[in-house]
């Protein structure tokens, strides 16, 4: 076996060729072993997903049932996270809210990934052709970027009405430029690669090359971007709810809960805002770390 530093990355003769998936998996194991924080973030992500799926089953109380006798109780053995002004159990509400918040984040990111993936294809085409496609996609992105993104989100939701669907659409729209720009830049790097020229020589049209040759090579980078955008999407949804433009009460949602609890911090009932806030922070933190971990896994330079 040659030195790992060797330019020629030939595998040794004994090594059986593994499937791409199996290899990625073993590489992922290696990266996680090397950096425990990445492993932790993946575990946290699994935990979040678990809460999102089984939240209502895990929660000890009905998240919407008010109990005025038990209002504004601090954390105790009965109510681990305490209760709010209507006597609703905060632990239950935080657990149940996971589903709604994750749903908004995942849906909006999925939307921007595919619709923005469409823009991505247009972006690939933009990076590939130059010309007018490039200008249209570029100027649309610039226009979106020209607004303070949160204000833009407020405007769109205010105009369309604050439903979950609209929040998802809004979050997708404000993330749109990020995707097109990344795809455009990455496509630009690759358009003069030998394998792209080779694809032209073998009779592929430009559109076909953009779709079947360049796009699959950019996909891993887009997936990393996706996980980073998730954290931002959750924050955005919670932020909209916080200022009353998102999910409507009494639905359990982290942003609303922080908003409702913020009024009570002054009077000493800190737990109402703290726990949903912590959940929010943990989720954003987790998505960012997962993004870093994914980047290490898909980055070919980290493969030795």
């Amino acid at each position, binding site marked *: 076996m040659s030195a790992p*530093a*060797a330019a020629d990355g030939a*595998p040794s003769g004994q090594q059986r060729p593994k499937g*791409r998936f199996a290899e990625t998996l073993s590489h992922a194991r290696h990266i996680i072993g090397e950096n425990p924080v990445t492993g932790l973030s993946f575990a946290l992500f699994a935990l979040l997903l678990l809460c999102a799926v089984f939240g209502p089953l895990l929660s000890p109380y009905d998240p919407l049932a008010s109990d005025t006798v038990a209002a504004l109780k601090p954390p105790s053995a009965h109510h681990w996270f305490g209760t709010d002004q209507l006597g609703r159990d905060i632990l239950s509400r935080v657990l149940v809210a996971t589903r709604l918040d994750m749903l908004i984040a995942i849906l909006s990111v999925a939307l921007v990934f595919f619709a923005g993936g469409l823009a991505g294809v247009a972006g690939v085409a933009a990076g590939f052709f130059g010309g007018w496609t490039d200008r249209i996609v570029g100027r649309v992105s610039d226009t979106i970027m020209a607004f303070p993104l949160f204000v833009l989100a407020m405007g769109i939701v205010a105009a369309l009405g604050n439903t979950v669907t609209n929040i998802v659409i809004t979050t997708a729209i404000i993330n749109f430029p990020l995707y097109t720009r990344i795809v455009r830049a990455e496509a630009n790097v690759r358009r003069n*690669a*030998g394998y792209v020229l*080779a694809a032209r020589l*073998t*009779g592929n049209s430009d559109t076909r090359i953009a779709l079947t040759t360049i796009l699959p090579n950019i996909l891993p980078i887009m997936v990393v971007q996706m996980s980073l955008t998730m954290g931002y999407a959750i924050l955005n949804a919670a932020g909209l709810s916080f200022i009353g433009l998102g999910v409507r009460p009494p639905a359990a949602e982290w942003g609303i809960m922080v908003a409702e609890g913020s009024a009570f911090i002054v009077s000493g009932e800190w737990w109402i805002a703290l726990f949903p806030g912590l959940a929010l922070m943990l989720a954003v933190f987790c998505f960012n770390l997962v993004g870093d971990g994914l980047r290490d896994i898909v980055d070919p330079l980290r493969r030795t």
Partner: protein
Amino acid sequence: MSAVQLLDVRDLTVEFATRRGVVQAVRKVDLSVGKGETIGVVGESGSGKSVTSYAVMRILDRAGRVAGGSVSFSGLDLLTASEADMRDLRGREMSMIFQNPRAALNPIRGVGRQIEDVLRQHAQAGSDDARRKAIEALTQVRIARPEERYNAYPFELSGGMCQRVVIALALACQPRLLIADEPTTGLDVTTQKAVMDLIVDLTRERGMSTILITHDLGLAAAYCDRVIVMEKGEVVESALSSTIFGNPSHAYTRKLMRATPRPGITLRDLLPEGEATPLPPPVPAGEALLSVEGLVKEYPRQGASRFMAKLFRKDVADAAPFRAVDGLSFEVRRGESVGLVGESGCGKSTTSTIVMRLLDPTAGRILFGGQDIGAIPARDFARHPLRAKIQMVFQDPTDSLNPRHTAGRAIADPILRLGGLRGGRTVRTRCEDLATLVGLPTDLLDRFPHQLSGGQKARVGIARAIALDPDLVILDEPTAALDVSVQAIVLNLLADLKAKLGMSYLFVSHDLHVVRLLCDRVIVMKTGQIVEQGSAADVIDTPRHAYTRELVAAIPHPPTS
């Protein structure tokens, strides 16, 4: 050999921790460099030659570890020296030149400033005389107009110029040991000669010791006192360069030497003894297949300066457009292989790209089998029936394969798009036939490029190019990224395929020896024009044009026994 050893490496073993366990990259290497001595470390990729030098400089990356042995530099044990001592030694006592000069320089800092930084870092200059000393250093590496170049940024300088700046940086503090790691790979032959002459002159002048790390046995033998040959992490031979060519003792050295292209041999002589079958008989060249007439490619001069001039309504005489290819006419006949030779920037790649129909010419005709394909826009040519008849083998086998497609899919791509074959089974059979033809084991077809060796990737690239039975294959330095022993095999494969399939080659290269081995005729280009053409043997053995003579002279000539 001098009695006082400046650098003494004993039993050096370097290990790398990888996912597949610990790998020994360097095993029990002994190496010594006397004062004022120049030694060459030669080996193919993966032989551990660079790792050895990194271990000496203590700049191994974090996965690497010295597992045993000793390194002493004029009495000081480098393996136990503190990091602070090493920082002080690097640059002042021993310095290094890397392969890619542009990457070794800070792109956003003027080159003069970068030299000043090194001088100040090692307290060789103060604020008052740093500039003067930096200019002096530039003068010493024979950079013309050093005062002007002092302010230049790396991107404004050519590759050769950048390497001179790197040498100036490395020598600025008068070190006693210089390690040059492939200092001329990627440079033109004439630049290579200039750079190597410079290194040797400067180090001799100052009584410095030099370690030259290279894959080129000829280069090492031409410039070094002693040559050390490494294979798979071990030193297999160490000999004076005057004797190593005449009397190589190790089988690996003999194999390397055989594989190095040199005058007076045939392609088959590159292969190890006993493996060579007789060369196919030369095919008599038929009628003209490709004829290029008055080919011109112009690029408008653009850039900030012109834009600014327009902005401020300065009256600039519109600069004449840059002519990359300037009225080129030549012919490739059926069954013939023609070499297109020249240094970087001479327009040979532009020419091949235009002939390939990936780029539109400004003027001129490209007749292919009687039809003017130059008139078909490059964009439409992708689906033209003639597309299948002109194919190409790319320079870098790694870069030219889509990392997400298996070898089999890469070969199948042209068959599916242009070959008109349908059905998984037929296509697969065709791919297997092609793989067998280029000597690629068919079970490798399911592998991804990163699971293949350089030579195997080159074979995939060749199989893809010949998949559609093209009449003309353009070879763009197809072996430049390969080790010499792999190059020997690939060149022979190309020659065999040409005889078997009756193709013509247009071989773009800067390596005259290789061109001579593979080509019937040679065209020498300079600044977009042809300066000389004729049969390969005539042009290279008895060059008529001054430029061709310069090219031939610049090839390193190992001492012949």
